[in-house]
Structures are given as C-alpha cells and as structure tokens.
C-alpha cells in the first residue's frame, strides 16, 4: 500500500500520464558511521573525530515506469546524511527511448559515466568498499548533468562494447572538493567507452566542461567584485576491474586539467589512482586498497589541491543476498610538505585542514563501518 502511494507521488512528480503500463519501485539504504583521530579536522566534509553517521548514510528510491513499449521513465530519489535531515533530492531522472536493442537515447537529468561505478555510485551494496576510493572519485564533483545521453551497445563474441556520449550542463551550484567553492558547469560533454568480458571490465572516459565560480567560502562571486574565475576543465579516466577465481580487483586512474590559471589556483589540476585487491572467501571479501592523489604543486594559495596517500584494509560480509556489512580501517597520509591537507577540510572555517602539530609523514586513522541493503 505504502509502495503504491509513493509510486503514485513520484509519477505525479515526473508528470507521467495514465498511459504507464508497469511501475517498478526499488530501494537501497546505507547506514554507516566513521571516525578519525585528527582533532578539529573534517574528512570528506563530514567525518570528524566524533562518531558520525553523516557521510555514509543514505537512502534512495528508484522508480522505473514503462511509458511505452520502447520508452521508460526512470528516476532516483536520494536522501543522504550529508544533507541536512536527509532532504530528498531527485538524483537523476530521465526518459529512455530505446531505438533498438543496441541503441538508446536518454534525456533529462542523467549521470555521466566518468568512472567504473559512476552509474551506481549511490548503491553501496553494489561495490566492495564503504565508499569508492575518494582520491579518484572526488575529482569529479559533478555527478549529473541536464542534457542528453546516448547508449550504444554491441556484442563482440563473448564481450560487450558500450559507448556512452553525452552533453549538457549543470547550473546547480556544485561544491568543489573542499566544499568552499561553488561553481556552474556549462558546455558539458564527454563520452565513455567500456568493454566487458566474462571476468573483466575496461573503461575509458573523457569529459570537458566550462566552469564558472559562483561562490567562494559563502561569498557570492561576480565579475564586478573582482573575484570570479572561469575556465575549462578536462577529465580523463581509465579503469579496469576483474574477477578471476575469487580474486577481485579494481583499479582506476584519473587526470584533471584546468585551463585557466586563475581557476586552477582555486580548483587545481589533479592526478589520482587507486588499486584494490580482494579475495572472495564464501561470504567474506577481505580487500586492500592503495590510493594516491597529487595536486598541482603550482596551485595558488586558496586551494593547494588534494595530495595524499592512503591504505585501506577492509572486509565485506554478505548478511544475505540483499544486505552486506562492511568494515574498513584507512591510514591517510596528507602531503603536508606540499601544503596540502589532503581530503581533510577546514573546520571551523579558516582553521588549518589538519592540526598544527600534524607533521609531514604523519598518518591519520579512519575507521568506518556500514550496512548496505537493497530492496
């Protein structure tokens, strides 16, 4: 009963007509906590030295409705702990027009497939970590665009080739890595090429966008104020995953290039990579992740970029076929010598990213646990 009411509400919100033939409602939920050992510092905007459930707790509903025989309406409503009171946002919503089994066109608010798991990054149950390696995934703060996306699929023997070009814009005041900069993205376009076999997936992705700052540390920016930066950003990523004889691996590399020097000063160039290795032992999946992020050493004083190394030891336990428990310990080493606090941010505003006595080479420990379910 409740499911029907929610579905009807969502469909009404999407403006769908009475011609809907079938509606499918699916949900996911992640409940997790994290704590680190650096006093008066925050990691990934919300994780502090107190136990907090903000960063890794989220709840989502996905509605799929068949509009016509070759058309679907799809929407995902997401509320996360990082937003106040789990305010529900429409994460993405689009109309999918299928021309054939191999060609589709989507229009609306779509996800751009920059990384291996961008398509399902909110569904924690679908990947081994509590959160994907942030050294890589934080390089693209724009998860969705308003625009068009094509989907071309071809079978190559035992393999499948997927090509996803897209274009559009995002004017929703997207925060940057450290949350102190808000910008718009326009002329957003890119493409991803993915090849999948029995036990592997390889993906390459490219995107380009023009970005303009709209707010810095809560202060609106405008040309007449003299502190508005704009430029173009390019992001190239490559990723591979494999699953052979219970040995599971993920690895991705990304490079971000900001063209304008003024923009680069507050939103610097970045290179990052990670490697995850795991071994499946029945219901358990122990894994280790090594990650690195390097910010442009010539970045300006506003933002020195994200430079850090981390090693994460984690284990995933399958509670059943719809729920998983995860536990991770992460050792983080910000590159203090390069003037970067890594993914540690300032709190309160203006304070250093890490404590003053945190020297170069010191490590911070982050402990996280979560339960992820789908339904």
């Amino acid at each position, binding site marked *: 009963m409740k499911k029907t009411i929610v579905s009807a509400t969502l469909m009404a919100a999407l403006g769908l007509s009475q011609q809907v033939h079938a509606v*499918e409602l*699916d949900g*996911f939920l992640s409940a997790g906590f994290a704590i680190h050992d650096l006093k008066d510092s925050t990691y990934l905007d919300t994780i502090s030295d107190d136990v907090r459930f903000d960063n890794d707790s989220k709840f989502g509903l*996905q509605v*799929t409705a068949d509009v016509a025989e070759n058309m679907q309406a*799809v929407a*995902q409503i997401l509320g996360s702990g990082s937003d106040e009171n789990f305010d529900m946002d429409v994460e993405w919503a689009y109309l*999918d027009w299928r021309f054939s*089994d191999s060609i589709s066109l*989507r229009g609306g608010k779509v*996800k751009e*497939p920059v990384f291996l*798991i961008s*398509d*399902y990054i909110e*569904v924690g*149950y*679908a*990947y*081994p970590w509590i959160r994907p390696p942030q050294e890589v995934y934080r390089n693209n703060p724009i998860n969705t665009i308003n625009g068009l996306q094509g*989907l071309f*699929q071809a*079978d190559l023997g*035992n*393999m*499948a080739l*997927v090509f*996803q070009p897209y274009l559009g814009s995002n004017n929703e005041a997207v925060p940057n890595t450290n949350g102190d900069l808000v910008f718009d993205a326009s002329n957003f376009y890119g493409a991803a090429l*993915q090849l*999948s*076999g*029995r*036990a592997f997936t390889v993906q390459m992705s490219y995107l380009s966008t023009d970005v303009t700052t709209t707010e810095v540390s809560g202060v609106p920016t405008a040309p007449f104020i003299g502190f508005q930066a704009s430029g173009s950003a390019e992001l190239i990523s490559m990723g591979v*995953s*494999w*699953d052979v004889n*219970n040995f*599971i691996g993920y690895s991705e590399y990304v490079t971000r290039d900001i063209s304008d020097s003024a923009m680069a000063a507050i939103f610097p160039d970045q290179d990052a990579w990670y490697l995850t290795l795991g071994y*499946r*032992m*029945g*219901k358990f*999946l122990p894994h280790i992740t090594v990650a690195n992020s390097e910010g442009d050493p010539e970045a300006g004083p506003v933002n020195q970029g994200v430079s850090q190394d981390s090693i994460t030891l984690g284990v*995933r336990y*399958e509670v*059943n*076929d*719809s729920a*998983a428990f995860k536990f991770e310990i992460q050792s983080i080493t910000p590159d203090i010598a390069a003037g970067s606090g890594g993914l540690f941010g300032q709190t309160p505003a203006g304070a250093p990213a890490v404590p003053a006595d945190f020297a170069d080479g010191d490590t911070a420990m982050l402990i996280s646990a979560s339960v992820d379910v*789908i339904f």
Partner: protein
Amino acid sequence: MNDSTWVINGMIMRNIIKIIFTFSLLMPLSLSADISSGVFRFQVKLAEQGNPEAQYKVGEMYETGKGVQKNAATALNWFEKAAAQDHKKAVYKLLYLDIKKNGLNNHSKTQLGILRQESASGNPDAQYYLGKMYATGVGVPKSLNNALTWLNKATFNGVSEAEHEAITVEEQLARNREKSANKRALALEASKSKKAEEEAAKKKKQQQAERNRKAEAEKRQSKKNSEARKIANEKKKIAAERAELARQKAQLNKERAAAQAAQEEPEPQVESRPEPKSGSSSFDSDPCKGKKAKFLSTCR
C-alpha cells in the same frame, strides 16, 4: 858310544814307551774279556755240576753275550735247568719270556698271579719282573708308573738290575711327559688355531651374510623404485588420457552447443562473469547480476 848311537837308542825307547802305553790302554778291555770269559767258564763248571744259581747266571751270560757268544736258545736251556730246580729268578725269567713270546694262557695267567702275590709279599725278584712286565706291557697293560713303583721296590730290596731298569723307565716317563706336554701344547695350539679359523670363518660368514643382506635390500629398493616409477608413469599416462578425454568431451560439447545455437538462433547475449563459487550470498563484482542490476542504467 857316540851321539848317533844315543839318538837311535832314544828313538827305540820312545817306540817302546808308545807300545807300553798302548798296551796299558788296551789292557783293561782285554783283562775284562778275560775276566768275563773266566767267570763264564767258572759259572759253566758250577752249572754243569747242577748249581741252579750258576745255571741261571750262565743263561743270563748267553742271553746278554757277556763272556760268551750270545745265544738265546742256549740261554733258555740254562734258564729251564735252573727253573727245574725251583730257582725263582729263572722261573720268573721263563714266565716273562713265555708271555712275551706266546702271550697269556691259563698256565701263564696262574704263574702271573703267583708272581703278583710274591711281589706283594716282598720278593725282590718277583717285584723286579713285575716291574719289568709293566714297563714292557708283557702280560699286563703297559704302565710306566706301576713299573717304576715295582722297580723302585725291587731296587730298595737289593736288585741291581731293577735300578738300571728303573732309570730307563724314568727316562721314558720323562720323555712321555714331554711328549704329552708337547702334544697338549700342539693340541692347544691346534685348538687355538681351529678356534681362530672358526672365528675367521664365522666372521667371513657374517660378512657374507651382511653383503647378501645389503644386496637383497638394494635389490628390494631397486625393485620398489622401479615399481614406483612404473606407477608414476601409469598415473601420468592415465592423467594424460583423462585430459585428452576431457578435451575431446569439451570439444564435443562445444560442437553440440554450436550446432544447437545455430538451430535455435537465439538473441545475441553477452557472456557474463562466472558465478561465485560460494553461492548466491557471496559478493559478485558484476553489477549487472543479482538484485543490484536494477539500479544500473546500462544493464540489459
């Protein structure tokens, strides 16, 4: 007289002295022979007159060749004449000669018994002859110790021949003891030698047995190794055959599947990742599998 005359006379004198000296040396022998001959003649006269002692003496002289040519038959004749007159020595002499020549018989056994009794009674002549019998093994088992006992008694009782005989027996005993000692030494040496030979033979046998045992063990090990190699080769062969069968089976299945696929002409599908070995409740890295597939926009 001139000097040359004195020289010739001196030489004659020296020759005379030489002759006298030589004669003086030969004189005792000649005298002794003459004495023995005289004694014989004197004894013969007495014997012919019927004196038993003289008859016995004449018999002994014929027996030993003293004063007369040795003649055993004549000696025996005189001994018998003396014995006929119950001359004890002659009787014992005849008994001794009889037994020595003919062995024991009923008569001589009786006579020997009498001899024993008389010896025990202290008759020196009887003791002498009994001792002689023991010394020579005539009529009694040869026993030098018994012979010496009786000969010593006879000597003590005044029989001079017994003393001579006793000395001979003692010398014989000494020789026998020496022989016996030598024999024992030889026997001991032989025993030691035999024992050493036995030990050597035993050691050799043990060494041979050890060599045989080692050879047998090596043979067994060699056989075992050979069997192990054989088994390993068999296993390898079986494994190769199984692998070949599996390959053929896989090939067959592949051909069947291809034939079936050609017949059914199914929709092209992407081969998905393998199912996890541990079952559905294991993590599956393929996002398009399981319930999570519905959250992906690219899964078919």
